[in-house]
């Protein structure tokens, strides 16, 4: 159990145990130790730019894409509104907290402004969900896309509350415990902490009754109803959970950029989140983070790469698009699917002879 993503269930006839019983250190699989150690030691290995602009940004986008993965992968609902939920939280923090736009910002302390921002953004995502859950497939995508674009145009045209085209700048994290959280290393650890919390909670909830029931709704909504589940309520609850994750990411995003404007929640960024989740893989919660790091690396270095190849720098979007096209073309289930197929092949072929062997180990078992 614990933090593994396997589908095994605890033996039934064990000694009485409580829900946290599986969370002992020894039950954490090896890859987690490696990835965990790498992420924790990253500030020693890379400079502030990589830490802040690449990994910080990737972790935040990963969280937003994770909220989409939770809805899409476990719930079968593709929502394009997750970026708008994050931007909503960012705007609310700027409005209730501090920003350079002092005519609008109320300047309330962070411990008031952050909870308010999270509640409002989660409420916004939940309302969208309540509208979208009665539809399926492409109609869910259309409704959430419509709400995302409505949010974009509303923020761009409303000057009283959202300060129109320019939005808010000068939104900074609070100085707390004597640490400036905007500095690359503290900010990196802050995002790493919240990304890890979001990742582990999605992993945990996926095997809890609520998450299992959500996967049941994805596989067969009608049967879930015939088992006593209120399918609509379950889907809306999934939006609450996912929107909260996106809202937390939105707070981090406005601190990373120092500003929020209509462009944060445009149609482009909304679709980028979908691309990140699909390229990484929707099957597991780690997929969105893989997708996010690829996306951020491409966005950051494609231009330099094009120039170094003697090509025009403005065409960097072409390279970004080609790489994504390639990934989705070779592996419709994203990087995760690619990796899983590779691992299966490694497990099923003897590396010396190239012969196929059965799954449970050596050919001479």
């Amino acid at each position, binding site marked *: *159990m614990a933090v593994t993503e396997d589908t095994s269930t605890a033996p039934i006839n*064990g000694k009485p*145990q*409580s829900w946290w019983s599986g969370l002992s250190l020894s039950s954490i699989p090896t890859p987690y130790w490696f990835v965990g150690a790498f992420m924790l030691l990253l500030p020693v290995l890379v400079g502030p730019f990589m830490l802040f602009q690449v990994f910080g940004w990737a972790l935040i986008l990963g969280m937003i894409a994770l909220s989409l993965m939770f809805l899409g992968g476990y719930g079968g609902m593709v929502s394009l509104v997750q970026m708008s939920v994050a931007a909503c939280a960012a705007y609310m923090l700027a409005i209730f907290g501090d920003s350079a736009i002092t005519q609008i910002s109320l300047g309330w302390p962070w411990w008031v402004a952050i909870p308010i921002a999270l509640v409002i953004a989660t409420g916004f995502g939940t309302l969208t969900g309540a509208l979208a859950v009665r539809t399926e497939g492409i109609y869910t995508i259309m409704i959430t896309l419509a709400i995302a674009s409505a949010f974009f145009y509303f923020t761009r045209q409303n000057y009283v509350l959202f300060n129109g085209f320019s939005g808010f700048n000068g939104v900074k994290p609070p100085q707390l415990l004597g640490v400036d959280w905007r500095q690359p290393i503290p900010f990196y650890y802050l995002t790493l902490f919240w990304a890890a919390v979001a990742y582990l909670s999605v992993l945990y909830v996926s095997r*809890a*009754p609520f998450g299992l029931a959500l996967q049941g709704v994805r596989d067969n909504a009608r049967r879930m109803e015939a088992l*006593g589940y209120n399918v609509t309520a379950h889907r809306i609850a999934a939006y609450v959970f996912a929107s909260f994750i996106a809202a937390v990411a939105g707070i981090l995003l406005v601190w990373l950029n120092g500003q929020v404007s209509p462009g944060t929640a445009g149609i482009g960024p909304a679709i980028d989140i979908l691309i990140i989740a699909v390229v990484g893989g929707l099957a597991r919660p780690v997929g969105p983070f893989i997708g996010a790091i690829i996306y951020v690396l491409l966005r950051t270095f494609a231009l330099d790469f094009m120039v170094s190849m003697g090509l025009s720098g403005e065409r960097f979007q072409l390279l970004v698009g080609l790489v994504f096209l390639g990934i989705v073309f070779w592996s419709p289930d994203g990087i995760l699917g690619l990796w899983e197929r590779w691992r299966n092949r490694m497990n099923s072929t003897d590396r010396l002879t190239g012969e196929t062997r059965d799954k449970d180990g050596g050919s001479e078992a």
Partner: protein
Amino acid sequence: MNAIANTSTMATRLSATGTANALELRGVSKFFGALAAMQDITLTVKPGERRAVLGSNGAGKTTLFNCITGDFLPTSGVVRMFGEDVTRFPPHDRIRRGLRRTYQISLLFGGLTVIDNVYLACRGVSRNRFSLIRPGRSDALMHSAAELIEAVHLTDVQETLVSALSYGQQRQLEIALALAGAPRFILFDEPAAGLSPTERRDLIDILNNLPGHMGYIIIEHDMDVALRVAESVTMMHNGRIFKEGNPAEIEADPEVQELYLGGGFTHG
């Protein structure tokens, strides 16, 4: 099947319901546009009664089930369960009141394991459906799920993904899902369809060994199965009730023989 009897608290709940009929349909009709799938059905089933519904394809048997479970709202008429008018209730509210059903074509959760499928069924009719806490090893519902799986002989594959099960195993799982919790009344929609002779015998055993207070309606084309698990029979034809009686009467009825047994259906 002791497992099912042990996990249910049926006896206590049943005594509270008094003498109300398990199921009562009054003039229930269902139209799809101008097409009458089911017309003026009046049907009473006593608690614990086991009834077979027979009829050719298109006779309205599955529509009848869908109206009882609430998958379809009837065009007119009243559906009562244990004395309560449930005509406008959504399916999940009827299920929580003790109704269960199986489907003619298995409706399972292919992306989940067998134990998770049954666990969901047990959880669906209990509290904390929205729980964010993972079930522990001593979880009572996990116990019930494992017992149900044992009752339908699927213990060996309980960790297997349902999409990887054989057809017969999926049919058995279909039944396990309907037996979860404390059913008071079950609708079986052709549970024997496509099963091997051995699997049929197992099915008949499972049905005959259900606790006495657990009534059911079974749709079954196979007369051998139907007449061995039911104490009363309703014949449907063209969306209407055509005959009602006990199995012997129905089997001996010349009109039934004409319509059903002689009507191109293989006997067994």
